[in-house]
């Protein structure tokens, strides 16, 4: 039972990090219908900046610079590349982000070399106990911060016209422009937000119990993709729920690996995808995604 609770808590905290990244996918998708493949390298960039700067300027300043820097990088990509390709097939834009991702990833991998960079969180490897179950402070904070950020976006979408502007711009840019929606602005803000979210996710993804910044954390973003899909790619709430489901499923599959060993060792790795496919078979647009309706 204790193991179960512990796995559950751990899964939720992991899921909170996935949710942050998934929300980045969702926001860019909402604003442009592009699925970005850059979240991984943005996350890495954010974590790298924070880790490199926390020694000279202290953790909090480094965190601020890292988040701003990552957001700036995302905005730069949007301004220099994405915004100039308005009207291009979205699938081409997705491939473009792969190219950019490769460049950033290569450069940061080169800079990190064989080191494992320590981010220097003030909470270090501390742990807290919730209901008798231990969890690192880092992860507990991740849950709180993800909850706050996602809640804020949920409210922003619900009670402002920002969400409508984004979805309108994504569906038909020209018509949206004719409504006075500033396409460049909508898209830029979306990328900026995705950059911020990636950096925040990177901040927590590289804290205890993960050792620090290695190029491998790039792959965390990969696990967040099924989370975003499962929740529904255009749903803020879906990003949260999807992230948590994937987080918990992953933790459970790892923790109860003997019980599912009949499916083959290492089955845990495919669990996120199995969960996602199962959900999609029942709900083809994810749990909370907008259903696809057309008529003639």
């Amino acid at each position: 039972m204790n193991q179960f609770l512990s796995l559950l808590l751990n899964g939720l905290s992991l899921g909170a990090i996935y949710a942050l990244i998934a929300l980045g996918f969702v926001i860019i998708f909402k604003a442009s219908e592009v699925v970005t493949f850059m979240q991984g390298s943005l996350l890495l960039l954010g974590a790298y900046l924070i880790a490199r700067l926390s020694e000279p300027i202290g953790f909090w300043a480094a965190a601020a610079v890292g988040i701003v820097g990552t957001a700036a990088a995302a905005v730069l990509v949007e301004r220099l590349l994405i915004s100039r390709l308005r009207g291009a097939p979205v699938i081409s834009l997705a491939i473009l982000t792969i190219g950019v991702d490769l460049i950033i990833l290569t450069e940061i991998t080169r800079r990190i070399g064989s080191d494992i960079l320590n981010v220097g969180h003030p909470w270090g490897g501390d742990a807290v106990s919730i209901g008798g179950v231990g969890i690192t402070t880092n992860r507990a904070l991740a849950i709180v911060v993800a909850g706050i950020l996602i809640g804020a976006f949920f409210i922003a979408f619900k009670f402002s016209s920002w969400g409508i502007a984004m979805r309108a711009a994504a569906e038909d840019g020209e018509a949206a422009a004719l409504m006075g929606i500033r396409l460049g602005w909508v898209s830029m803000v979306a990328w900026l937000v995705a950059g911020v979210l990636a950096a925040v996710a990177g901040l927590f993804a590289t804290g205890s119990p993960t050792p620090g910044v290695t190029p491998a954390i790039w792959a965390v973003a990969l696990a967040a993709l099924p989370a975003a899909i499962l929740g529904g790619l255009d749903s803020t709430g879906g990003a949260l729920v999807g992230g948590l489901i994937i987080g918990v499923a992953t933790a459970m599959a790892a923790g109860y690996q003997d019980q599912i060993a009949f499916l083959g060792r290492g089955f845990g790795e495919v669990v996120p995808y199995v969960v996602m496919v199962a959900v999609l078979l029942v709900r083809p647009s994810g749990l909370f995604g907008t259903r696809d309706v057309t008529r003639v």
Partner: protein
Amino acid sequence: MSDTSTATRLVKGVVLLALLVVLLALPLYVEEFWLRTGFAVFAAIIGAVGLNLLVGTTGQLSLAHAFFLAVGALTYVYVSGDPGGSAIEYGGFGLPPIVGMVAGVVMAGLAGVLFSPIAARLRGIYLGVASLGLVFIGQHLLNTWTSVSGGFNGRLAPAFDLFGFSFGGNEEPYLAVLGVPFGQAERLWYLGLALCALACWFASNLLRSRPGRALQNVRDSEVAASVMGVNVQEYKAKVFLVSSMYAGLAGVLYALSIGSVAPESFSLLLSVQYLAMIVLGGLGSVGGAAMGAAFVSALPLVLQQYSGSLPFIVEPGQPGIVASQAAAFLYGGAIVLVVMFEPGGLAGLARRLKRQPRPPQESPPVSTTSSAPADSSSGGTPR
């Protein structure tokens, strides 16, 4: 109108013929490395042309291609390979390689048909990522099913031969043309060229005829297609069949080009590379897929081969940028540049060189959205 179209067709024919002649003569002049790279490119072209039928022509976004390649490759090594393995033992039927090749193609096709009902429920990016699930599940299966796959490190692939003519291994019977001995690399080159040409020819015929038109209309509007008498589900299943048969053949050639197969090779990365091929090449056209495949599969190698001569490159071990990192930068940059200047893919570039009129909705709208691609019936579409 038809005058100019026969003229362009003539030009196209001449260009293709010239290309074929060059490709036929190449083994007489270039080194083995390039022939091997060429063979890998041929394999990639076959796979990309198949994927393009599915994604570009029919609008079914699939990232499962790596899985179908794996089915083809593994079936080949199992059917034509011998039992063996030291640490991990694996089985094999040891049948003639041509049997293995055909079996690989058929099994991959079968896998595609089995997947198509799932695919039929999903659309756009949801289909894309769900199909990615197949890749992960497939890799897990291969890692677990060691008696077939040889486990994590994989197993050797038997060399190909056809009626006693060997394409690898023993190089028999001995053959030399114009004084150039035709060894494994040369022979494989021709095998790849022949299969690739056949695959491209078949696909372009398909696109220009009844099934191709039906598939394109399924992409543009499923409802319209079905009202015109196209059985949409059946066609989707069929295109999955054909596309994964192409993937299966590509998988067999992939095994031959590496000489071994390991589950790890058939990863998400491979699927994404195939998608990049057809997008960078230009969705919907056979020539585009071929160009994209050459671009994606050969460029990293070419760059690595030559980036050493760039001025700012340091020897491995020195601080700075080493050749392979430069190659990665250049490759990433090349992808960005292609999309920036030809969002519709390299095929658009070729077309521009030919200065043909350019229809406004050139690149078929494969959207990653949940909605059917550019469905005019959704009411919001302009005329």
